[in-house]
């Protein structure tokens, strides 16, 4: 890895998801590649999380802004194939999600998706006595659950 490329990865580690601000774009697993395209110029390939995710455009803009401060020329390429999957969220990312009160995706995104996809435990108190309130939540990636032990509702990042 060249110094130019390595520096870009460091910059990207500080770019946060606008809707889950504890998670960097690297931990979310949406950065596919960084290449040096010339003197002080880089191209970053990004794979969107969901087809209709309104955060994607903000993320692309944030990446461009962050890198533009460090490079002469920055290109952000949106790469659809292969599609992003929750399997690409890093272990650190999963731990941070839990700390933020969102149960991380539980299991791998193999097709067909299993019908009983559910969180491993309540991210607040760790209880396994939980129930689903709604299959769709505050953003397209989440479902709404509730813990029967601590009585707190929580978001679950669905396996996709």
């Amino acid at each position, binding site marked *: 890895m060249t110094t130019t490329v390595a520096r870009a990865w460091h910059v990207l580690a500080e770019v946060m998801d606008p809707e889950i601000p504890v998670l960097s774009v690297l931990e979310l697993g949406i950065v596919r590649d960084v290449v040096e395209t010339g003197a002080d110029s880089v191209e970053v390939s990004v794979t969107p999380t*969901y*087809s*209709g*995710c*309104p955060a994607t455009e903000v993320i692309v803009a944030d990446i461009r802004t962050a890198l533009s401060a460090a490079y002469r020329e920055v290109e952000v390429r949106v*790469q*659809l*194939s*292969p*599609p*992003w*999957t929750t399997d690409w969220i890093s272990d650190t990312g999963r731990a941070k999600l839990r700390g933020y009160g969102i149960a991380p995706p539980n299991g791998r*995104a193999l*097709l*067909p*998706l299993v*019908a009983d996809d559910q969180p491993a435990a309540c991210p607040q108190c760790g209880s396994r006595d939980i129930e689903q*309130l*709604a*299959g*769709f*939540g*505050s*953003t*397209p990636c989440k479902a*709404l659950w509730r813990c029967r032990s601590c009585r707190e509702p929580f978001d679950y990042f*669905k396996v*996709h």
Partner: protein
Amino acid sequence: MSELPTVEDVADGCLLLSHRLTQWVGDAPTMEEDVALGNIALDLLGQSRGLLSLLGDEDQLAYFRDADEFHNPAICATPNGDFAKTMLRQLFVDCWLELVWHTFSEQEDDGVRGVAAKAVKENAYHRRHSRAWVVRLGDGTEESRRRTLLALEELWPLTADIAVPGWRESVTEALVEATVPVPAAAEPDPAALAGAVDARRELLAEMQSLARAHPGATW
């Protein structure tokens, strides 16, 4: 039995159904359902945008084509009606899209494959939702069943162009659990199709009005 749709058919179908679903937002029976329908609409919009971008300028295609230039399946633009009709329409379209996205995810075109491979998973959650509601309403109270049967009568003639191979089996499985009788394969019905064309015109007039009043506007 209907043939597999083109990329344009699917892009237009997802776009118009998405816009129909947004008409429920703020007006759904429960807050959870408001959120669910909004999220499903958002997924469909994103899927449509992905495909429209492969065909040309997405805004131009969405906002500046006239109603008779759209290629959506008839059922996608049909009015929401009550909640039973909305959910039955959703089940019919979700079952169709499940087969479509699987086929598209094996296409040679890298762009189509990318959109489809993502959409397959999103659609699985939509279908789970619409299926659960159809079963609950069809096999529910006297009133919910009455409305489900009325919705079936109204929607069935519009299914001729989405009945691709495998669709009937998929829909039958859900209807049987909902204790709803499965009608014989739908024949294209001129009156129902004319109604669907009017519905599309009305829907697009609303959807396109802002963009046409301010062409080239940006946020």
